[in-house]
């Protein structure tokens, strides 16, 4: 027999009450009224008589009633989990896979899992060995022991994490442990809420033959109710001042369970509440909330969108980094002055593009410093830059857009730069020409739509002698837009110029997105995420934006204040995010360096609380053996709380209390009634 609330046994101390009352109250009770003391004499009671119980049977009944009442409140559970794991005397290797993913924070799940684990530990026989494996996205063997006290000690320090669920690592670890063990019986117990989103088992996720699997579902029967901030986006817009940038923060809120009304949402920046909103969220629905534009700081600051708390903590706040993205710096080289490209790029907000315009004959290598992309607007080659330097720029990760227009000439392009243009600079061909086909799925052009671009007419074109990497072709089949990689960089080559000499493309509305898309593609630019999911691995260079400054070791402080080192020798190259909040990374040995922030949140998939049938896991890990081993795999064992609820033993104990009190009443009545006075 077990007890769900053993602390109530402290109530047994109340047994002393009747005894104390006998010893103490006896001397203090009301005197016996009597008509006259004329015939009485003083005869004090001997002290020894006070130590004797007045009525042992009455005291016994009262003590039993108090003890039974304490037992009823302690909620006794009959039977043990021994039956779950089998009751024979063979030595067993027990592996308990305990799910500690975020979804285990839902009310009741963790306590049920802990109680079930404790029950399993209590059911161990002599010689049994139990290995406690905690798993979420990863699995870790916490302790392996034969002593219950050691196992319980390890269990006490556990709590649900912010991480997502993955079954495969846990099963793989269980397989490894089972294979190592020489015990005649091997049992794997899976304690989980069996979240469907955590399913990642494959044909390789199999346990050795002869291993019994017992899934214990701790999700409970109660419906789930949870509100969460699922995602946050930060959109940069131009501010009213020169060069100022503002941000519009939008959040997506979800609600699992009954509809909620008038719930508060607030935006916090650096710990201060900046704006608040009140929203309604439909039953099992979602909604979006957008805050007014706020100034975007040049340096990263921590921010979060917070929803009013509910029963599940941890997903009510979404942490993110608020920072103005560094501008995409571009060098535009023109043979003849043309305002179209520079103006179009300067209009873009996200990302902000900073354009340095140089004439072909005036450009130098110094102009390349800090640039991500070089655009040859009309094909004129910057001789002052040099072919080798430009090739080196691309090989190191830079981007080049070579629009071979009117100013392009095979004679002016140095041989060192021939690697930049497939087949070299082609001949100029007069005659109206339009684009014939275009790869609409290519990121360089896909977002702008091919219709308007295909309608553009070009008075002259230039041939590109290549067959690979063609993004668009002219109507006569020749390559019109080609891309290829060179070293770490990219080169986009076009058979027409962007200066407006051969076509009116620069005056078309699509010119701006077309040029911006090409520039972003050539620069391999991607919007830095404002937040990451827990479990992601982040390199310092990913946050810094430039690889050069991210070299060396970085000191990392986690949201809970834990410190670690990332980068360099003898340290992991990337930071693995394990808890929700904002991580701060600072370069070691650089005094006064500003921290680079990484925001981490609960994986979105983990917030999908749909569960699956635990037998599915049994079938997956046992394969064909699951059919044979079906009798050995009982349905999910109820937790002690569930068994207690079914047994309702405390009702019977309360009934016993009632009977004891009735007996006490009968016995008490047979005792002489105290004297009383009345008229």
């Amino acid at each position, binding site marked *: 027999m077990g007890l769900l609330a053993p602390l109530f046994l402290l109530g047994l101390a109340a047994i002393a009450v009747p005894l104390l009352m006998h010893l103490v109250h*006896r001397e203090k*009770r009301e*005197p*016996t*009224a*009597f*008509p*006259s*003391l*004329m*015939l*009485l*004499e*003083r*005869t*004090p*009671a*001997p002290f020894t*008589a*006070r130590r004797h119980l*007045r009525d042992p049977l009455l005291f016994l009944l009262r003590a039993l009633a108090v003890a039974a009442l304490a037992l009823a409140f302690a909620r006794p559970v009959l039977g043990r989990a021994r039956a779950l794991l089998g009751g024979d005397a063979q030595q067993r290797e027990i592996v308990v896979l305990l799910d500690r993913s975020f979804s285990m924070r839902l009310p009741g799940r963790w306590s049920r899992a802990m109680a079930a684990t404790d029950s399993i530990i209590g059911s161990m026989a002599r010689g049994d060995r139990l290995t406690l494996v905690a798993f979420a996205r990863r699995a870790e063997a916490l302790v392996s022991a034969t002593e219950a006290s050691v196992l319980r000690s390890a269990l006490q320090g556990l709590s649900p994490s912010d991480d997502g669920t993955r079954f495969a690592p846990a099963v793989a670890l269980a397989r490894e442990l089972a294979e190592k063990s020489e015990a005649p019986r091997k049992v794997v117990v899976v304690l989980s809420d069996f979240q469907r989103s955590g399913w990642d088992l494959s044909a390789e996720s199999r346990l050795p033959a002869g291993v019994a699997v017992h899934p214990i579902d701790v999700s409970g029967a109660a419906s789930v109710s949870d509100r969460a901030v699922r995602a946050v986006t930060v959109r940069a817009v131009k501010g009213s001042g020169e060069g100022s940038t503002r941000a519009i923060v939008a959040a997506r809120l979800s609600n699992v369970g009954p509809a909620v009304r008038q719930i508060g949402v607030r935006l916090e920046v650096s710990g201060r509440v900046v704006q608040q909103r009140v929203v309604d969220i439909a039953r099992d629905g979602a909604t979006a909330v957008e805050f007014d534009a706020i100034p975007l700081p040049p340096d990263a600051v921590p921010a979060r969108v917070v929803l009013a708390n509910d029963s599940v903590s941890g997903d009510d706040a979404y942490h993110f980094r608020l920072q103005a993205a560094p501008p995409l710096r571009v060098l535009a080289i023109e043979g003849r002055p043309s305002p179209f490209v520079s103006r179009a790029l300067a209009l873009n907000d996200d990302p902000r593009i900073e354009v340095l315009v140089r004439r072909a004959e005036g450009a130098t290598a110094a102009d390349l410093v800090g640039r991500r992309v070089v655009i040859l607007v009309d094909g004129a080659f910057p001789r002052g830059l040099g072919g080798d330097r430009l090739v080196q720029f691309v090989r190191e990760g830079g981007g080049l857009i070579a629009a071979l227009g009117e100013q392009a000439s095979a004679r002016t392009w140095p041989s060192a730069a021939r690697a930049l243009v497939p087949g070299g600079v082609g001949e100029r061909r007069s005659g109206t020409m339009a684009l014939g086909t275009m790869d609409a799925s290519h990121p360089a052009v896909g977002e702008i739509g091919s219709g308007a671009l295909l309608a553009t007419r070009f008075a002259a074109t230039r041939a590109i002698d290549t067959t690979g990497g063609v993004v668009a072709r002219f109507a006569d089949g020749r390559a019109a837009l080609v891309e290829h990689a060179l070293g770490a960089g990219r080169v986009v080559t076009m058979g027409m110029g962007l200066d407006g000499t051969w076509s009116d493309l620069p005056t078309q509305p699509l010119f701006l997105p077309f040029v911006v898309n090409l520039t972003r593609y050539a620069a391999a630019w991607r919007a830095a995420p404002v937040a990451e999911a827990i479990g992601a691995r982040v390199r310092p260079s990913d946050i810094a934006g430039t690889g050069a400054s991210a070299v060396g070791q970085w000191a990392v402080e986690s949201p809970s204040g834990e410190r670690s080192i990332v980068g360099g020798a003898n340290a992991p190259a990337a930071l693995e995010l394990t808890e929700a909040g904002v991580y701060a990374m600072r370069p070691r040995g650089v005094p006064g360096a500003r921290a680079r922030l990484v925001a981490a949140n609960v994986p979105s998939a983990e917030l999908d609380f749909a569960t699956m049938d635990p037998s599915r896991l049994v079938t997956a890990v046992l394969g064909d053996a699951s059919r044979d081993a079906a009798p050995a795999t009982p349905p999910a064992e109820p937790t002690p709380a569930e068994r207690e609820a079914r047994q309702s033993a405390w009702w019977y104990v309360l009934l016993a209390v009632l009977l004891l009190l009735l007996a006490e009443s009968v016995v008490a009545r047979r005792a*002489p*009634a105290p*004297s*009383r*006075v*009345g*008229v």
Partner: protein
Amino acid sequence: MTDRVRLDPATLVRIGNLELVARWVVEGFISGLHRSPHLGYSTDFAEHRPYVPGDDIRHVDWRVFARTERTYLKTYEADTNTNVTVLLDVSASMGYAHGGISKLQYAKLAAATLSWFSRRQRDRVGLVTFAEEVREIVPPSARHLPHVLHTLERATARGGGPLAGPLARIAQSQQRRGVFVLLSDLYEPASAIARALAPLTGAGHDVIVLQVLDAAERTFPFGDATTFRDLESGERLPVTPAAMRARYLAAMDAHLTAMRGALSGGRVDYHLIDTSHPLERVLFDVLARREFLRTAV
């Protein structure tokens, strides 16, 4: 008498209406007496009235018939009705009860019953309640029965002191001889009680003493060592009943024996009443014994 249903005193108390209870009890025990147990009476001729069919011819005045040839009956009335006064002790000790009704409740029932019974035989009834001094007086009168019953209902147990003082004042206030019924627990030495009654007996009154005791006072059933508190004086005394019981019972026996001896002569009729006994049975014994005494005298 033994064939009748005995009336439990506790049941009578719950009825509440003293007059009804008194009538009920009287009707119960009177049928067991052989003759009217008049406490004291004399009858005289009152008048003649014409005979009507159905009248007992034994009451026909044949002398008048001989002279006038008309049939008349002789009628009588009690012209010397006795004063019957109940002296009810309402001291705090009379409020004692051990599981049943209190002594005062029992005494009230007895007083009401005797008053009603006396009035039934056309005696004048009165009531005096007293403790350390006289509390209330209802002078004897043929019309005072309701007043007596009302006063009985209002009586409560409190205070207490020697009987001598109140009884002396009562004796002084009585101009006419009569019968006094004293209801008390008599927690005084027998000699003191006899002296206290002397003014009444000396004045020629008949005195019936009914000593009312609870069963617990006679058996002392207490078990635990405890402190006993005197209901009248408030004095406290630590007592171990187990050690005290034998001595107490002996003392009580001696007290009652002394009381019986001191009050057995002269014009005093002494009775001991146990509140656990049926009231009509007790009164039957009292009245039957008095009838025997009167007949014997």
